[in-house]
């Protein structure tokens, strides 16, 4: 009996999860007890360290500690920015142009560990951790990758994982995986029609995607990546704050020594995580520079001031994506925050102020029961693993064929006009074929009704809300009146666009139930039928064509 697990393989950290048959997902902790396992490998003499233990080596043994190598998979040295490895073992160009690391092992022998080798070792460690936890063999996995992973990178990762003895059943995109685990939580939201923004703030990069969920089918509408922005920027801001403070107190510059910086960095990470949960944190580092110990406390307010720049970049990043997708903020139904940096309360509150009330923001800051942002992705992968575990390779391959995956999507909603002249969508835009949707309506008092089918036309409705008059005391009046601007709320309303066709239903009793069904087949035939909801009623039908 072997198990198939879900792996979220990140640059900074990885996590593994397992879903049992009943859909219960468990995020697996490694032997150190970490559920978010740093993707780090460190070498001291003959020993290999992995995860948090390897991260600890960054201070004393940074030259032999491999970090941030995930994005290097399947790439050549010239294609990548090796800047990200500067705090660990520097990336070097190997003989065949790929990327490797010079690691000094026992007796000063230098071993070149390629990215491929590091990946295999890392995956092996994860596999071992999962096997220890589950008590059974782990022979397969569903691994997540960012949406901009190239085909070559995907193939390379599959190859490496298979070589490790971990059969890759499927590679899935990180944002869809995260969304899957969120949707699976509440069954009713799974089949609803919503547009999600999945924002993943990792350690060294940020990715975001806008995904339309239509009857449980996920379609990525737009993506955005930023390889500069990430949690590490928060650490650096905090480091700089401590360094400045240290310099002021002791007149010693700690930035000149790599070891001092590593110490500051490691403590900053701890402080950052603490401040995400509590209002103030202490920071104490032994022998920062020149043997001077450092101790201070920092509260959340000060921290949020320090990281203000990075946070505004992050929110700007999200806004940019919404713009790129040609949407307006109110069209986003939910924002799902993913990645360790999403734990930062300031990020959530900033986003909250940017988006209208109707947009829900899923983050542990607002909902303590929400799944932890750094577990969302691996949970989704585990769910997918449980789902496809029973299929054999051919079936999975068959299901991933372009003919299945590349599907026609409706551009505009299709709906009817009700008695008040309002547009009532039956099938919303961005729904994938084949579609069958029905809508229950009534005829009211009239004995025969007209069913007019319209294509929806989106328009932005601007509502201006005048600021509520507050009585000010005389001396403040002048200054504050200028600040108050009328608030403009932008909303998207769908109106009846082009009339596609019409049907009529006659000889009805007052207030009888009617059903309108829209059916679009795989080959793009659109049928619309309407009938009275009673036994033996005859449906009237119309077939529409696409331009």
């Amino acid at each position, binding site marked *: 009996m072997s198990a198939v697990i879900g792996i979220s393989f990140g640059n900074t950290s990885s996590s593994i999860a397992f879903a049992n048959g009943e859909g219960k997902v468990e995020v697996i902790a490694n032997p150190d007890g970490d559920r978010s396992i740093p993707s780090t490998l460190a070498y001291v003499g003959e020993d290999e360290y992995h995860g948090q233990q390897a991260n600890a080596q960054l201070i004393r043994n940074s030259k032999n500690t491999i970090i941030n190598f995930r994005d290097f998979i399947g790439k050549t040295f010239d294609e990548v920015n090796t800047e990200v490895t500067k705090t660990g073992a520097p990336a070097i160009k190997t003989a065949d142009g790929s990327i490797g690391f010079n690691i000094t092992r026992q007796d000063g022998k230098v071993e070149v560990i390629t990215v491929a080798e590091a990946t295999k070792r890392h995956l092996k460690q994860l596999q071992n951790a999962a096997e220890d936890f589950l008590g059974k063999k782990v022979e397969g996995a569903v691994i997540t990758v960012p949406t901009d992973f190239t085909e070559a990178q995907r193939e390379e990762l599959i190859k490496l994982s298979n070589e490790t003895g971990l059969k890759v059943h*499927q590679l899935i995109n990180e944002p869809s995986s995260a969304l899957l685990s969120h949707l699976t939580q509440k069954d009713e939201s799974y089949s609803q029609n919503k547009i999600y923004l999945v924002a993943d703030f990792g350690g060294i990069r940020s990715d975001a995607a806008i995904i339309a969920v239509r009857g449980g089918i*996920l379609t990525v509408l737009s993506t955005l990546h930023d390889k500069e922005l990430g949690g590490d920027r928060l650490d650096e801001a905090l480091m700089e704050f401590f360094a400045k403070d240290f310099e002021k107190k002791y007149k010693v510059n700690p930035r000149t020594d790599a070891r001092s910086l590593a110490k500051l960095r490691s403590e900053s990470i701890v402080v950052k995580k603490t401040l995400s949960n509590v209002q103030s944190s202490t920071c104490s580092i032994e022998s920062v520079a020149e043997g001077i110990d450092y101790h201070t406390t920092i509260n959340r307010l000060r921290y949020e001031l320090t990281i203000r720049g990075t946070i505004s970049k992050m929110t700007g990043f999200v806004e940019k994506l919404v713009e790129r997708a040609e949407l307006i903020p109110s069209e986003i139904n939910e924002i799902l925050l993913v990645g360790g940096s999403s734990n930062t309360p300031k990020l959530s509150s900033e986003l909250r102020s940017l988006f209208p009330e109707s947009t829900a923001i899923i983050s542990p800051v607002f909902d303590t029961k929400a799944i932890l942002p750094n577990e969302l992705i691996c949970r989704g992968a585990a769910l997918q693993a449980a789902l496809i575990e029973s299929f054999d390779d051919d079936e999975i391959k068959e299901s991933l064929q372009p003919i*299945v*995956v590349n599907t026609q999507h409706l551009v505009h909603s299709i709906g009817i006009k009700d008695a008040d002249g309002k547009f009532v969508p039956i099938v919303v835009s961005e729904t*994938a074929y084949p579609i069958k949707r029905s809508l229950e309506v009534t005829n009211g008092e009239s004995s025969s009704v007209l069913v007019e089918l319209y294509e929806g036309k989106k328009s932005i409705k601007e509502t201006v809300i005048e600021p509520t008059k507050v009585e000010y005391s005389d001396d403040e009046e002048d200054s504050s009146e200028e600040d108050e601007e009328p608030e403009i709320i932008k909303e998207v309303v769908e109106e009846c666009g082009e009339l596609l066709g*019409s049907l009529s239903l*006659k000889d009805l009793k007052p207030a009888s139930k009617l059903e309108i069904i829209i*059916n679009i087949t795989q080959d793009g035939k659109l049928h619309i039928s309407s009938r009275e909801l009673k036994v033996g009623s005859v449906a009237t039908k119309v077939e529409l064509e696409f331009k």
Partner: protein
Amino acid sequence: MSIVLPSLPTGAEGPVVKAKVTTPVRRPIEPVGRYFLSHATRTLRGHTWSEYEKLEAENNVTAVEENVDDDIGDEDQDEELLEHDPRDWKTADLYAVLGLSKLRWRATEDQIRRAHRKSVLKHHPDKKSASGGLDQDGFFKIIQKAFEVMLDPVKRRQFDSVDENADVKPPSPKSQYDFIDAWAPVFEAEGRFSKTQPVPSLGTMDSTKEEVEGFYGFWGKFDSWKTFEFKDDDVPDDTANRDHKRYIERKNVSNRKKLKQEDNKRVIALIERAYSEDPRIKMFKDEAKKEKERKKWEKEAGSRKAAEEAAAKKAAEEEAAKKAAEEAASAKLTGKKAKEAAKNAKKKQKRSIRGCGKDADYFGDAGKASDVDADLDLIVDKLDDVQLADVAAKVTGVDAAGVKSAISAAADELAGAGKLDKSFLKYFS
């Protein structure tokens, strides 16, 4: 708030197509989640929505069935049962006590538990005393007893054995009834006691002979687990009178035996009656009879045909013999005539040959007339039938020289065949 459709303006009738839908865009969908799997199967197998829904519905059937009996144990008990003396609980209808009088022996353990929970909630003494009356836990005691019996498989079987409310009485012999409708529930109820399950059903009027025979065959070998412990007299558990206790036990055992025997007899009688009344059996018997007759008729038809054929053959043979005889007679007759005719012709031919010398004036040589005649006699005697006819034809109606040459040729031919020595001829040598 439901959506109200606008009313139909006059003149806007029937399905009308006005415009085309905007061309769709092709986008990849994310291959994750169970809805994608459904999408993939739909796409790959080319199911339409209704087909797919059908398949899904089939998969969901079991799940639905489990939810059907939500109203389990909701039925109300009648006054009489509520007033039942808890000391006499054995005589109460324990299924009705739990509100399972419809399901009875079909109730599953889960259903019993749920029904019990409901009746406990309804009849708990705490609830009763709250609504006045203190000593009202009689029915509750019966509920607990019933639950105890129902959850113990052995005790439940003992109760089921004597649960007359679950038995279905066979139809009264005098009344008019449809055989299948009347008897199927009887056998279904009786079949619950069978040690071998499943029990074959009575079937329909269209059942085949094998099915019907299988059914009666099963009931002929019917083996029931029915036991009658439930009707036992209570064995006194005081140790004071051991003899009395043993007496009661013995009595119980013999009583059980007696009841079991009676029950077996009853079942046998039931089956016999059903068998005798079964219209299908009658039908099969009639059919068998008809079949037999038909076979007999067929068999006889065979011999009949043989006899007919033999007679026909005989007649034909007789006919043929007769015909042959007649033919033979007529042939004989004509043969005779022919012979005579041939003889006459021969005579005529011989005569003409013999006379040809004289007719030709002895070829102008009258002095040798006797020699010519003698030679002609000799030649005619030596000629066979064919030559005779040939020569006769040659000598008639020709001149003297032709006759002479013909005779000479005939003489030469005969001499050539060695039949005639030319030296004997005086004129035609």
